């Protein structure tokens, strides 16, 4: 029940277009556009919800109630916030590089949205079933660094510049353990296709086969999304808001919303690589596969928020030291152990 809800809609639309005599290539293009728009809407609605959820989680952890005035239970709070931010003036500093300055908040949403296209939301529910999906994900995820740097550099502000330099330093150094942690899973499955990786977890989720890799990936993921305890990029007490300092109105909001889109991305990747993607645990297939995926992603997101509101921010030297002296050697060791283990298992003949 509900399992084929979305694939059914896609098949129905395709059949409808076919019956209307639309040529096959146009049929495919229309279907693709519909899928992309659906993903776009899904992501934007989720991002709005995540801002609300973050505020609620933080409030509950701090013994408060959180937003509860706008709409039922405060659900429309984010909508009101966005409405307010849209109506505000976008102030452009006189000496800033105006084109780059205005381009950065526009581009910031592009990498997350491009990545979402290859995500398998459920059984046969990837908009594009790419056989180098993981590679595509990693390649595009590191593009965000460039856009943060654009914003920080063009603002002509020392806080923005320091923040942007921190973004680049942090994201580049944590990209390495992130990729190396995923390498363990890729070695086990021998593929970069997300669907095949999920299928390979039918019996054991890779969080049990590769617990260290999961931990490294998770920590590096928190760092990649610039969230506490690695939110040096926007360390309010030191550099105001980092690369976002000079942005106002919707420009600022885009950066903030992109942060939540990135949180979602990292959670999705965690789900796909380590938590069995859309596979139902314990054979509970009465819940549709896409809903399992959704639940797992939201559990991961909740853990991200929980961590954010628990730990204090660490120092820059601690961040770099932890990244290069702990995470990178650990992830290399993980790859080594995985490789050796695979040969041993093969020799035993499992």
């Amino acid at each position, binding site marked *: 029940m509900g399992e084929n809800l979305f694939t059914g809609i896609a098949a129905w639309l395709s059949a409808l277009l076919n019956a209307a005599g639309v040529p096959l290539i146009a049929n495919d293009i229309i279907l693709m556009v519909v899928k992309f728009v659906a993903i776009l809407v899904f992501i934007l609605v989720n991002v709005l919800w995540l801002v609300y959820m973050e505020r609620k*989680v933080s409030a*509950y*952890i*701090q*013994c*408060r*109630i959180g937003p*509860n005035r706008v709409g039922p239970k405060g659900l429309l709070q984010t909508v009101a916030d966005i409405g307010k931010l849209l109506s505000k003036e976008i102030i452009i500093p006189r000496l800033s590089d105006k084109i780059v300055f205005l381009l950065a908040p526009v581009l910031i949403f592009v990498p997350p949205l491009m990545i979402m296209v290859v995500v398998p939301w459920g059984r046969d529910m990837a908009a594009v079933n790419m056989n180098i999906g993981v590679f595509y994900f990693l390649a595009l995820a590191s593009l965000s660094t460039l856009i943060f740097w654009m914003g920080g550099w063009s603002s002509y502000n020392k806080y923005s510049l320091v923040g942007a330099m921190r973004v680049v330093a942090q994201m580049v150094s944590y990209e390495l353990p992130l990729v190396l942690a995923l390498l363990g899973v890729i070695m086990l499955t021998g593929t970069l296709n997300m669907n095949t990786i999920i299928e390979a977890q039918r019996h054991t989720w890779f969080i049990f086969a590769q617990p260290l890799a999961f931990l490294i990936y998770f920590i590096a993921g928190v760092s990649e999304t610039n969230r506490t305890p690695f939110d040096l990029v926007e360390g309010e007490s030191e550099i105001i808001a980092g690369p976002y300092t000079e942005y106002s109105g919707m420009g600022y909001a885009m950066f903030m919303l992109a942060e939540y889109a990135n949180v979602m991305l990292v959670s999705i990747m965690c789900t796909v690589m380590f938590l069995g993607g859309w596979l139902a645990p314990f054979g509970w297939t009465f819940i549709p596969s896409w809903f399992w995926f959704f639940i797992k992603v939201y559990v991961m997101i909740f853990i991200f928020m*929980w*961590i954010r*509101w*628990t*730990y204090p921010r660490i120092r820059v030297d601690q961040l770099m030291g932890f990244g290069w002296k702990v995470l990178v050697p650990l992830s290399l060791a993980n790859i080594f152990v995985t490789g050796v283990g695979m040969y041993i298992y093969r020799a035993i003949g499992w």
Partner: protein
Amino acid sequence: MFGQGLIKGLQVTWHEMFKKKVTVQYPEEHAPLAARYHGRFQLDADKCIACGMCANACPNKVIQITKEKVGKKQYLTKYVMRIEYCLFCGLCVESCPKDAIAFSHIINMNQFYRDKVRLVLVDRPAPESLPEGEAAEPDAGGAAAGKAARVQQAARAQAAAGKAADKEGE
């Protein structure tokens, strides 16, 4: 074990999530005020003997008293507090020999216009003559008159409170 503190921190925040929330939803609920809370002033005009000790005690010259002589006694005709200068120290309340001026629990004194902020506690014309025997030994009739006056005063205070609660002013 390494990372024990991190786990402990997560446990603390997890338990915190299910605790009773401390937020008081202000316009609907009110946090209880202490009995001695320094709120809006209230004046029992019947008790007031217009001695002016409160005005003398006030460090900011907030209190302005106008009085007239009726018969042998001083009669309070106007009691105005320029509340925008008041620091709610309570020296006037302490200095009052008859406990006529006191703090109430009304905390909403905001006004839209500055000239509405001024707190007029009493504004009345002086009577031709005071009723007989009202002050020293109140007999039955006097008590009744006093009661009537007190009811009137309460109504006035209520009206003033209503005006204070109205944010927009007139």
